[in-house]
């Protein structure tokens, strides 16, 4: 069964047709890239998939469950994690607190149990602290646990955001331009990280990216959109030689 299926989703902002007739099927374990020129509607698609925007038509399924009309926090619970193009960390909190907040949905103690510090509070807090440290150490960031997120170098902030998304235990991870603003060395490291999380967490990845080295290097399948419509689908090699894609990027 496919992990994510969309049927003819589209969205209109006033008179602007931002995305039209977008169809995608993602199988478990895939690493898919979504590319296109600036303003093509890539982030809008992400926002529809994660419930930030409601598509004006069409249907979105996660597994066989229809998720149209669900709020972003409900879609996270269905197993869809995401990062943002412009990093959105909890800047004034420490690294470990950033991760701990992402475990919120896995915790069950009530306000009463929390305020009176009953056994379930200690048990669950100890568990998520342990899990958070484990997760950070997988990314070699356990030494930064007590640092404020805003004080991390850029590359680590990106990593932390991915880390935080992974803490929600997603089946499908949406990465919105993870390499934006990175130098070639950081990009290379990021590629390794992406491979690593895919193997380690058995997570399926859909990513938006402009860095063609990264896209061609790690994606198994690409979807190219322009003006809100799909103009090509296929393997990186097929896309490289596709006339429409070259036109969209370079102009005819």
């Amino acid at each position, binding site marked *: 069964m496919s992990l994510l299926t969309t049927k003819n989703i589209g969205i209109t902002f006033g008179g602007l047709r931002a995305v039209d007739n977008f169809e995608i099927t993602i199988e478990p374990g895939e690493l898919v890239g979504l590319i296109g020129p600036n303003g093509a509607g890539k982030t809008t698609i992400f926002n529809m998939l994660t419930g*930030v925007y409601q598509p004006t038509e069409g249907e979105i399924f996660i597994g066989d469950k229809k998720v149209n009309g669900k709020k972003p*926090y409900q879609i996270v619970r269905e197993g869809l994690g995401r990062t*943002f193009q412009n990093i959105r*960390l*909890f800047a004034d*909190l420490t690294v470990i607190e950033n991760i701990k907040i992402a475990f*919120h949905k896995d915790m069950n103690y009530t306000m009463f149990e*929390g305020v009176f510090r009953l056994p379930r509070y200690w048990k669950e807090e100890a568990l998520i602290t342990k899990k958070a*440290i484990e997760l950070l150490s997988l990314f070699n960031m356990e030494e930064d646990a007590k640092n404020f997120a805003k004080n991390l170098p850029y590359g680590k902030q990106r990593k932390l955001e991915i880390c935080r998304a992974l*803490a929600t235990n997603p089946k499908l991870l949406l990465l919105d331009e993870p390499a934006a603003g990175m130098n070639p060395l950081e990009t290379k490291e990021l590629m390794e990280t992406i491979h690593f999380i895919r193997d380690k967490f058995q997570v399926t990845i859909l990513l938006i990216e402009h860095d063609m080295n990264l896209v061609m290097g790690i994606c198994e399948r690409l979807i190219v959109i322009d003006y809100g419509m799909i103009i090509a689908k296929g393997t990186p090699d097929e896309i490289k030689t596709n006339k429409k894609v070259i036109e969209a990027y370079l102009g005819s």
Partner: protein
Amino acid sequence: MVALKDKSRDYSINFIAVILTFIVLMAVIKAGLINNYVEGVVVFAMINIIVAISLNIATGYLGQLALGHAGFMAVGAYTAGLFIKAVEYPKYVEMIIALLLGGLIAGVSGLIIGIPALRLRGDYLGIVTLGFGEMIRYTIINLGDITGGASGLKRIPKLIGLPEVYIVLVLVITFVFLFIRSRHGRAIISIRENEIAAESIGIPTTFYKVYGFFISAFLAGVGGACFAMYQRYLTPEKFKFMFSVELFIIVVFGGMGSITGTIIAGGLLAYITEKLYAYDELRLIIYSILLILLMIFKSDGLLGRSEFSLVRTPARIKHLFSTLKAKFGKGVA
């Protein structure tokens, strides 16, 4: 990592400190070292601190600009006042019910206001809460048959003194402190930090905004109930917009997101107000000057977002000394 046995030492230190303060306070009263007037000043400062802490939940932790907390305090005060005038129970039973009831009704009014208003952000939310605060006051004025209208609610039995208010204050502080350091508190702070990110990792932000606002209004109501039971008469005049601003000043002064900062600022401002009582108008000017100075030298308030900690202070002082020593030693060498 986090476990009860690590924390129990910290908890006991704080508990002992609270008890010691209480004993000192009682001894001072019993020995007649402070008169009724000073006691009154201290009690009103404590009540202001309770309400300012409640406001700090909405502004400092939840990150929403709320300018109508005098209104919630008024709801709590009038609820408690009307309740204890109407019933005849043993003193402490009546007091506890009045506190809870005042909090509850204020909390419910917080929900009624919060559910529509929290869709707004920043200045807009500030204006709406300000308006609602004034609406509450006008409602009280116009319900003259029940509330006594503009002339006020009189002859409320005095059920509370300095020791009781102190206990309520300690309970409120303890509650907020423990609440903020639980998963619910973290969810509320994440909304302040970045609402979109919070939503994207599974925090139902609308729910937690309303929830935080409810708790904030609830505690403001508890503060109001204390006020009613100590002051013994209530007038709508007290709960004007300027009072909301005064509370806000306490929060800003102490640091948004710092409970101990609010306590210090509440005490400090009460002291300044008292010293400047003779120059009523001038007081506001000095207030403003203080705020301007604060904005220039420490724009996030006295304590910012950090807390004063009895447990960690010795270590912090030691650390300070060792760094100073290192500097000094270098200088000599």
